[in-house]
């Protein structure tokens, strides 16, 4: 109830400044905005409450009661690791690509090509994740097999390409690539939007001082768009962390914590693990799965929080 009073106060102040009609419109708008904000908060709190209450029995249960007879921490740790690994891998591939695509569309390509390319990139976002999953196992996975064999032979001294290379291509590397394609449109859309808004004055100023196109981009466009690109990347990371179907279909999940990206033994991700095991689970096993969901929720919150901090710091500068 309290917030209605405060809005009326604000309304009264506004009303004093202008006529009565404006006052009513303002009140409706203000209330609608408050309701929207409250709904979002309520949803968020609701999800958190659900995760905590349903996951609680698994968090407090002894390890012998839990499925697989191990403690919840040792159950969730490899999953959390797999989730972060897949997400980070996708980001490493997608973010530079997305920035390059956005720069090409906004600053390099001729207008007509830029528009078509923009549409095409946006179209990637419209493809359902299950289609990406099927594409991953039927096309990208088999196509990646010889590449991964080559990586094992030539770069096998690196822990990430240690091998033995998978014979089916259902590896973390392929999952990272698929996730990268999935988040590319999100990151590039945000980057494109902000790059195109770089003040003309700055760009022309840089060029007047004799900067090449690349120097102009580096000194004006990129710094201007930095914080938005970071938030776009975080949106993408959020999707990559939570992606379920594509990962569940593609990834051969039979390993623990490993950085080896090209073998058949990969850590599962939290979301994929829930999707794979929920149908046949009952009792405490379901609580355990929901509790892993809580961990995913916490990871996502933490990454967003860190991103906000990075943005805030870069803005101060």
């Amino acid at each position: 109830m309290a917030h209605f009073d405060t809005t009326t106060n604000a309304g009264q102040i506004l009303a004093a400044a202008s006529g009565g009609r404006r006052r009513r419109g303002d009140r409706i708008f203000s209330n609608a905005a408050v309701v929207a904000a409250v709904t979002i908060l309520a949803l968020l709190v609701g999800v958190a409450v659900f995760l905590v209450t349903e996951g609680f029995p698994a968090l407090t249960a002894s390890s012998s009661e839990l499925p697989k007879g191990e403690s919840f921490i040792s159950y969730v740790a490899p999953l959390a690791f797999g989730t972060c690994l897949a997400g980070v891998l996708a980001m490493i591939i997608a973010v530079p690509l997305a920035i390059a695509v956005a720069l090409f569309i906004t600053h390099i390509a001729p207008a007509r090509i830029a528009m078509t390319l923009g549409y095409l990139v946006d179209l990637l976002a419209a493809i359902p994740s299950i289609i990406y999953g099927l594409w991953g196992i039927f096309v990208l996975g088999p196509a990646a097999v010889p590449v991964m064999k080559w990586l094992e032979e030539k770069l096998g001294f690196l822990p990430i390409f240690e091998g033995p290379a998978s014979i089916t291509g259902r590896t973390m590397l392929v999952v990272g690539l698929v996730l990268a394609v999935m988040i590319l449109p999100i990151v590039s859309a945000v980057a494109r939007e902000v790059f195109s808004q770089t003040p003309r004055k700055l760009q022309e100023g840089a060029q007047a001082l004799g900067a090449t196109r690349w120097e102009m981009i580096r000194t004006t466009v990129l710094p201007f768009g930095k914080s938005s690109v970071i938030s776009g990347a975080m949106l993408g990371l959020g999707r990559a962390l939570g992606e379920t179907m594509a990962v569940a279909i593609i990834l051969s999940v039979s390993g623990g914590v490993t950085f080896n990206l090209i073998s058949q033994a990969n850590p599962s991700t939290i979301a994929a693990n829930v999707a794979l095991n929920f149908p046949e689970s009952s009792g405490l096993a379901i609580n355990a799965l929901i509790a892993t969901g809580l961990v995913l929720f916490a990871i996502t919150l933490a990454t967003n929080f860190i991103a906000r901090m990075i943005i805030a710091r870069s803005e101060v500068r």
Partner: protein
Amino acid sequence: MSSSRWLAVFAAACALVLGLAACGGGESSSTETGSKESSESAGGGAPSSEASGEIAGAGSTAQEAAQKAWIAEFEAANGGATIAYDGVGSGGGREKFIAGGVAYAGSDTPLSESEGQLAAAIKRCEPGELVEVPDYISPIAIIYNLPGVEELKLEPETLAKIFNQEIEKWNDPEIAKENPGVELPETRIVPVNRSDESGTTENFTDYLSKVAPKVWTHEVSGTWPVKGGEAASGTSGVVEAVTAGEGAIGYADASQAGELGKAKIKVGSSWAEPSAEAAAKVLDLSKEDPELEKGQKNVIAFEIDRKTEASGVYPIILVSSLIGCTKYKSASEAALVKAYFEYAISPEGQKLAAEQAGSAPLSAALTKKVEAAVAAIE
């Protein structure tokens, strides 16, 4: 001002959440009673036909194809009957049945005492009794991808070692000695397992632990116990992975194996191939398990004789059961469950399942026993 406003927003959010939670709780209980009522009234509304009304079942995805086929035929024959089967998985089906959400369940493993589910199910059926009968038997094939190798023979112990990752190359002497005259390549063996929890895995690991206890020391479970193999989701995923990977070997429902090579397994002194007859025969040789039956006369649960040495038998099978009660809230609901169960286990129903889902029909001897149990439904 702004801080007090945010406080207000937060307070309102909390209030809304509490409200939603209260609504949610109320709703779920009301829908439960609602569905019971509706099934009752629908059944009561059509007394002229014996099998009419609506029932819902849930459970095993393994028998989902068979259930769909039975339901289509059954509904065509009984105009007033509607049956819905939801393939939520065996565990989910058992849980829904115990909670009273569905009239019957399909499960790849019998109800057992380990999670207290057997006792809970018996309680759910009071004042009637629990009914649990096998209705779906399916051979699990060992599928492999080795170009040029038409026939592969494996001893149970060798099979267990392969899936336990103890044998790593196809030309290992242990495999070679069972396959004289076959040119085995030096390819790496990649065992493929299910990444999701499944009844197929549970039945296969049960087989391995019984026939090769020295090698297979893992616990029997629906989730694959060995780390580091190739894992794929669903039967189709395993088949796809084996098809894609040269040197791969996996286990999958025989009806889904397609063109892939199926290994012959040593049973006694002969080599057995997955087939409907060979699979159905196992249950005739198996004993009923008193622990799983708990003195319930309408529960037929087997301890599958995986170690059988009889010829013409294929012991790597999955047995899925129907779970129901002898008494329901209304006589018409019971009549509908009974009529449907009778159809599913009848030779016609079993033949339909064999055609549509590739299962192995129940043997004549077992059909008799199962019919007697289903007849107890009032």
